[in-house]
Structure formats: structure tokens, C-alpha cells
């Protein structure tokens, strides 16, 4: 919501607090979206939203976490869609999914002494990134925050506005979806047979 014109001093104060985090914020947006133009739009939108909410920021030293929070919620809220949630498998099956076991059973490199390492080495960077992008945002956002910003579960809970238990289950399930996506990618590439659904 627009809150009327900002004074030059307030505008300057906002820019001092917020723009120092531009590089980190853009990096986060790019890792989340995989597209430079989309990331730039997302960052612009985040700053506009942040400017409106700036009067409510009580601890300017928490500006970075605050900006990450705004961007994260923009992404999650925009893509909140039940159909994507069930796109993979039932949650229980998904939580038990094991890429390790499937590689072991399928044994794509029968003469390898490092079967699992050799399996991972087959993937191109863009395939791994594609697998990450296949994650619903509700799982991708915490996972990227963890990987890129190395936030603790407590910090993630603050950014995402949810309990630590929810963070823990989303990070677990997010990685399981990622394992599943890599397996699907390996099947498409013909690295493994496709007898298993």
C-alpha cells in the first residue's frame, strides 16, 4: 500500500540501510529463480515493498535478514498452489525416497569402486540447477537460504515466519524432492534403466 510521499531524509536513510545488501539479495534471487531478468525484477519489487515497510523496521542492523524475509515471502506467497505440492508423490513416500538405495539397486556402473560418486559425476551443472528449480518454492526457499546464506534453523524460522519444526521438515522434504528429481533426470538421460516408476 502506498503511504504517501517519503521525505528525502527517510529515503536516504532507507537507501543507507537497504542498498548495502543489494549484492547478497540479488545473489539470493538468482539462485532462487535461475534467471537474471526475473531475479532483477524480484529484487526491485522487494526494495519497493521494503521502502513501504521501512517505518516498521525497529532494528536497522537486521536490515539484511529483513530484506531476505520480504523477498522469501514474495516468492512463496506468489507461488502458493496446492497442485504443485502433490506434483511428486505422497509426502510419506517422498520422505522415505532414497537416491542412495536406488543407485545401489540399479548399479549403473557395475565395475565402479565409487558407484555413488560416479553417479553424481554424470550430471551437468544445469541439470542440478534444473532439479533445484523443480522444487516447489516452499521447499526451495529454505534450501537456498541454507545453502547460500548458511542460516541456522532458528534464523530460517524467523525469516520464513514458521516454527523450527516446520523448517526441519521442509528442508528434509526439499532434499528428498531434489534426490527424486536427480533420479528422474538420470532416467531421462538413460544413465539408469526405467523399469522403476
Amino acid at each position: 500500500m502506498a503511504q504517501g510521499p517519503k521525505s528525502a531524509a527517510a529515503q536516504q536513510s532507507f537507501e543507507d540501510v537497504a542498498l548495502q545488501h543489494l549484492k547478497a539479495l540479488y545473489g539470493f534471487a538468482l539462485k532462487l529463480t535461475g534467471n537474471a531478468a526475473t531475479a532483477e525484477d524480484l529484487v526491485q519489487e522487494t526494495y519497493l515493498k521494503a521502502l513501504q515497510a521501512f517505518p516498521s523496521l525497529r532494528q536497522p542492523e537486521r536490515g539484511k535478514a529483513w530484506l531476505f524475509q520480504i523477498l522469501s515471502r514474495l516468492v512463496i506467497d506468489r507461488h502458493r498452489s496446492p497442485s504443485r505440492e502433490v506434483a511428486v508423490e505422497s509426502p510419506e513416500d517422498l520422505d522415505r525416497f532414497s537416491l542412495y538405495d536406488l543407485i545401489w539397486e540399479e548399479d549403473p556402473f557395475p565395475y565402479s569402486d565409487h558407484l555413488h560418486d560416479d553417479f553424481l559425476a554424470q550430471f551437468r551443472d544445469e541439470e542440478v540447477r534444473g532439479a533445484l528449480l523443480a522444487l516447489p518454492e516452499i521447499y526451495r526457499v529454505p534450501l537456498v537460504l541454507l545453502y547460500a546464506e548458511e542460516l541456522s534453523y532458528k534464523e530460517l524460522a524467523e525469516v520464513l515466519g514458521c516454527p523450527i519444526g516446520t523448517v526441519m521438515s521442509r528442508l528434509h522434504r526439499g532434499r528428498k524432492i531434489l534426490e527424486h528429481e536427480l533420479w528422474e533426470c538420470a532416467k531421462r538421460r538413460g544413465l539408469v534403466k526405467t523399469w522403476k516408476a
Partner: protein
Amino acid sequence: MESVKRMSCEEAVRQFYAYLDRALAGEPHDALEDHLKACLECCEKLEFSRKLDAFVRGRLWDTPLPEGIEQKIRRTLCG
């Protein structure tokens, strides 16, 4: 007297990522470490989870800030 039930492999595997993220503490942490001391297969699975995490982490997009983006944002903020 054995009053604490040993953690099963399935329960152990469910805790791996929290363990790798150093988010496991207290009894669940100790129970998982006890399990790992006695289960070679789970140790190998944990090691794979660790490698997979590092593998994905190392492949995230990383490019320099686009030229002119700061000026563009400053202009947008001025409305």
C-alpha cells in the same frame, strides 16, 4: 537396565539432514550417533547425503551484479 529404545535405520535416515545442518541436539543427536556407531550402512548413507549436499551447493548460480542495477533501483525508489 536398557530403557532407551535403539533408533531404527528408518528413523536415523530421517534425521540425517538435520544432523548435517548441526540442528540436532540432545537425545535425538545422541541416539543418532549411537546408531551410527553400530550401523555401517547408515554411515555410508550419511556420507552420501553429505556429498550430495556439497554437490548441489557447489552448483548454485553465481554471477556478478548486473551493471546499472543499483541506479535502476534508486530511480524506482524515487518513484
